[in-house]
Each structure stands twice: as structure tokens, then as C-alpha cells.
């Protein structure tokens, strides 16, 4: 342990409480970025600082608080760019291309062709839907296609401006469960697809998550 470690550990408690200022703080943070042992030491005090806040007594706010919060935050439902297809699909070029690509992935023995009703039947499909992906500020960022059949699957396509640094995808189910999509990885065309073990009818939200500083993308399935 060198002098920098010594100095940093002496102020570990102060750092955890956020009461160190200026140059002293800058020096310590620089050292912590390079020294895992000192980081661990500060983290122990950070856990304690967290626990201190949890000692504050619970108190219930006035009646209606929950509604006020939700009314302020949750936007009125956006008109969804949603298309429901029966066994005979509308001739939308993008959707057809997506079906063809993904069915080729999921069921390799299916031929791409123009008889998509037959393809759905062959894959025990009952429903094919499309939902828009949005950024936080409501800009359109791509489309996700959901297929209910055997197997169920998703195809995600992201517009070029929003592809950078998307690292993970997850489904949020109606009951709040999170289901990671471990196969998620955008190919050079901005697409990713794979099977899902959950019923698409019970998916509430698809969420694409970026690395630090990036923007998440969200598609609402419900409604």
C-alpha cells in the first residue's frame, strides 16, 4: 500500500458520504479509478452510507399521491404503428422481407417466397404483429416484429441513426418480469432476431439498452 492508498483510505468514509471537496476529491477519485483495493474500501463505507438513509422512517404521502405521480409521468398512449396480420399478410415490403429473413433463421427448411400465408401455416403461426420502437423523446427509431407460433419469435430492426452502442435487449412482461434476449446483437443491417420462450401476448414492453451515455429504445406491445 503506497502513500496514495494510505491517503485515500483515510478519507474513505468522507468520500462515501460525499463530503470531500475540490482538489482533494479530484485526487482521490483519480486514484480510485486506478486502485481496485481502495475502491473496495470506499464501497464498504458507501454501503453504510446507503444503510443510514434506509433508517429514515417510512411515511405515507397523502391520498392520491400515486395517481398524481403517474398522471404527470406517463404519457397518453401514443398512436402505435401496429399492424395485425391474419394468415394472409398485407403486402408491406419491409414486413415481408423481415418475415422471410427471420423464418429462414428460425426454420431453415422454409423457403422464402411469396406464399406467406402458407409459411405461417407451416410454422403453426397464428399472428404476426409490428410495433414501433421509440426513443425517450418519442422519435421513431425502428420496428419490432412479433410472431406467435411454434416457435414464437421476434425480429428487431433499428434505424441507422439509433443503432450505435445498443448492447442488450429485454422483454418486460405484464407481471413485471424481465426476460433478457440473450441472442440480441444487431447485424450490419441493423437487425436482430431470435426465438422467445414467452407468449408475445403477455409481453408489455421491449427495451433495447445502450452502453453508458446511450439512449434506450422502447416498443410497447400492450394495447
Amino acid at each position, binding site marked *: 500500500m503506497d502513500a496514495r492508498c494510505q491517503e485515500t483510505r483515510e478519507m474513505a*468514509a468522507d468520500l462515501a458520504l460525499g463530503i470531500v471537496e475540490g482538489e482533494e476529491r479530484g485526487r482521490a477519485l483519480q486514484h480510485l479509478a486506478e486502485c481496485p483495493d481502495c475502491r473496495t474500501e470506499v464501497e464498504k463505507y458507501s454501503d*453504510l452510507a446507503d*444503510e443510514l438513509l434506509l433508517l429514515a422512517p417510512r411515511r405515507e404521502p397523502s391520498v392520491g*399521491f400515486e395517481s398524481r405521480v403517474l398522471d404527470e409521468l406517463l404519457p397518453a398512449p401514443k398512436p402505435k404503428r401496429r399492424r395485425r396480420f391474419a394468415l394472409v399478410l398485407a403486402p408491406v415490403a419491409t414486413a415481408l422481407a423481415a418475415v422471410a429473413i427471420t423464418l429462414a433463421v428460425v426454420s431453415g427448411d422454409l423457403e422464402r417466397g411469396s406464399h406467406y400465408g402458407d409459411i405461417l401455416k407451416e410454422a403453426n403461426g397464428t399472428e404476426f404483429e409490428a410495433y414501433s420502437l421509440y426513443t425517450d423523446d418519442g422519435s421513431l427509431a425502428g420496428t419490432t416484429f412479433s410472431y406467435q407460433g411454434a416457435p414464437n419469435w421476434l425480429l428487431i430492426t433499428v434505424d441507422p441513426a439509433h443503432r450505435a452502442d445498443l448492447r442488450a435487449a429485454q422483454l418486460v412482461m405484464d407481471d413485471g418480469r424481465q426476460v433478457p434476449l440473450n441472442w440480441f446483437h444487431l447485424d450490419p443491417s441493423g437487425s436482430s432476431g431470435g426465438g422467445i420462450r414467452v407468449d408475445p401476448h403477455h409481453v408489455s414492453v421491449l427495451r433495447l439498452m445502450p452502453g453508458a451515455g446511450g439512449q*434506450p429504445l422502447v416498443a*410497447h406491445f400492450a394495447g
Partner: protein
Amino acid sequence: MEVDPSDEALLAGFATGDPRTAAAFVRRFQGRVFGLALTIVRQPAIAEEVAQETFARVYRHAGNFDARKGRVSTWLLSIARNLAIDHTRMKRLDPVDPEVIAAEISIENQVPGADEAGLQPDERDQLRSAITDLPDDQRRALVLAAYMGRTAREISDLDDVPLGTVKTRIRTAMIKLRSEMEVFE
């Protein structure tokens, strides 16, 4: 058997705007958030403003939450604490006596929430006892720093004691409390 969704799952649902999970998220944490805000600002109307703003900030920044760095509850409470401190300063509220806060957080046997993570209730009670047992000057400095966001220099000016003394009081208090927590690890 039905299992409650985890805090992280509810946060994810809240962030995406799903009405059901958003409502469940607010219900789960509103008591904690409002309770902490009230502890700091002392006025229910302002504490509700703080709590509402806390949820708004969480909604906007949920993508920044990193489960590897901490729990949802402590992330939420850190935001609430900082907003409460901001409101106290902006609205020039009368500063609360740190001993009042120390007394409130020392009340034992509070009913824990089903979602409580971290220390177990009896461990938390032991931490409360340890705070009560601190010498007055250490407890005061600790509460000023942990709850009221005062820097060591500000506490030094406020209490008219040397900066080094303030730092020693806070460090000594934290070391004592940490040794209590280590018993549980």
C-alpha cells in the same frame, strides 16, 4: 406460488411507462421516499414535491441505473436526499436540528417492507442502537453529513470547530458503525 417482481423488474417497467408496473413501483417506494424527504424538509407539502420530483427523475434516468453499483432503493433514496437538500436551500427552510433527525432514525422496530434488501430488521435495529451510542458531537456531525448534505468545511463553519476535528468526528463515527455492520457480514 406468486413471487413479487424484483425492484429492478419494477424499475424497468416504470421506465418504459407500463402503467401497471409503474403503479407497483410507486406504491412500493413512496413510503420510503416521502419518509426520507419529510425527515429532511419537515413540511409534508414540500416533502411531497420532493417525492414527486424523485419519481420523475428516476423515470427519466432509469437507463443510468446500474444494478452492479447498488440497489434500487438506495439509488432512489440518494436522489430523494439530494432533492430534499436542494429544496431546503432553495426555499430557505429553517435548518432542522440534527438531533431531531438522529432521534427519528433511532426509533427501533419499524415495520420493514416486504421489499427490504440489505440489512435484516434486527441488524438495522442494531445499527440504530450504535448511532444512539455515538458521542453527541460525532452523531451530530454524521447526521449533518449523511442526511443534510453538509460538507466537512460547512460543518466546521456551522459548529465553529476546526475542519480536522469535524473530519475526525465523522470518520470515527463511520468506523464504529461499520464495525457494527461487519458483524453481520
